[in-house]
């Protein structure tokens, strides 16, 4: 089976593109999945913005994950739901594109992306420009057949034993092969930044569950991620070290710094905010 535009593609219809900068689209989350993370909903918004950016430069260049000012987690997407996607480009040239965006279900916001910046790279280094162009035309007309995404493999994550009240470490083994690499990207497989975030948010949430409760019997829930920055590509088979540090904790919020290194080089980081569960 050709996994291109299936294994890690989260836009199956572009419903409007105005002035090359305001794009709207949809993605039907396959009903047969066991789960669909908020990180993947954020990925869907980023992919929608990428379509607008690529179309604006006639598919010469494409954005890759780079900087995210904030991702707000507002509700949980569920298999079988349809994501309504929107992205507004706020400046673009051959070096970078800046955008904000949102994913909603039936008008209820799921994730909101603010102040995202994606470095632009040559499309041909990552994909076949003609196939990308054809896909865009399909998404703008009839739309793609839904259901291409079949889920993700489980990632091997091992938490270190020597964690403390203030910090925690874990190792993450990026799979050497996985279906999503055929789609992200066909000519240059890269571990998606959204999956790194998903893994790291899972680690942060596990740790938050062990922090003193904000209220009697209450729990911490993920509110937002700030200052996301992806500094280098992560390749299939890479072995990552993630460190979580508690930056601040009060009755109202807990802020955790998450940093991931690949052979000692910092490849990604973000601040994760938890608030008392409502």
């Amino acid at each position, binding site marked *: 089976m050709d996994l291109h535009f299936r294994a890690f593609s989260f836009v199956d219809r572009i419903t409007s593109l105005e002035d090359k900068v305001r794009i709207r689209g949809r993605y039907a989350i396959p009903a047969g999945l066991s789960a669909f993370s908020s990180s993947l909903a954020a990925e869907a918004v980023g992919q929608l913005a990428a379509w607008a950016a690529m179309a604006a430069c006639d598919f010469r260049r494409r954005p890759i994950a*780079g900087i995210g000012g904030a991702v707000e987690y507002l509700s949980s997407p569920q298999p079988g739901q349809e994501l309504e996607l929107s992205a507004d480009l706020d*400046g673009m040239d051959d070096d970078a594109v800046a955008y904000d965006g949102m994913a909603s279900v039936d008008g209820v916001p799921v994730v909101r992306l603010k102040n995202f*910046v994606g470095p632009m790279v040559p499309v041909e280094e990552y994909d076949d420009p003609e196939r990308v162009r054809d896909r865009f035309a399909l998404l703008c007309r009839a739309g793609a057949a839904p259901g291409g995404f079949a889920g993700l493999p489980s990632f091997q994550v091992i938490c270190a034993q020597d964690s403390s009240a203030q910090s925690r470490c874990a190792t993450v083994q990026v799979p050497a092969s996985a279906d999503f690499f055929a789609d992200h990207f066909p000519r240059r497989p890269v571990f998606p930044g959204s999956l790194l975030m998903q893994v790291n948010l899972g680690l942060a949430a596990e740790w938050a569950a062990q922090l003193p409760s904000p209220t009697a019997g209450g729990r911490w829930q993920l509110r937002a991620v700030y*200052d996301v920055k992806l500094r280098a590509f992560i390749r299939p088979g890479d072995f990552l070290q993630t460190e979580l540090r508690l930056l601040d904790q009060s009755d109202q919020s807990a802020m955790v710094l998450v940093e991931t290194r690949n052979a000692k080089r910092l490849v990604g980081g973000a601040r994760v905010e938890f608030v008392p569960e409502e």
Partner: protein
Amino acid sequence: MLNHEITKEEIMAIYPKVAAIVSEALGRDLAEIKPDASLVADLGAESIDFLDIVFRLERAFKVKIPRGKLVEDARGTLSESEFESGGVVSEAGLARLKAFLSEVPEERLKPPLNVSEIPRLLTTETFCKIVIRQQRAAAARST
């Protein structure tokens, strides 16, 4: 427009805001951010950080900062062949850089200097000047 036309007062008027942005983008304490500290050599900035800083400055100061324009601006009236040869900044180019990047300590502007190394010279004060130039350009366009 050369640097010496930008006054110290103008720079200091926006420096606290620029320093705060550099501090946030690099995840460094504000106290570590000094006007003449090289963002690359002293603060460990990478290319993605420059992109981050530029977009934060654009939002904070409501200006547009064209990426890659710094080298073009630094070249001034010199042609590309006068400014550099084979990727190495010429003597005339170096003189121009010393005037344009007057905030950069002289010892960092020694030959041979590759054009690709120019971003390594940038300091927080350099970004203040970039913002001021863009503010001036915007003001000139609107009059």
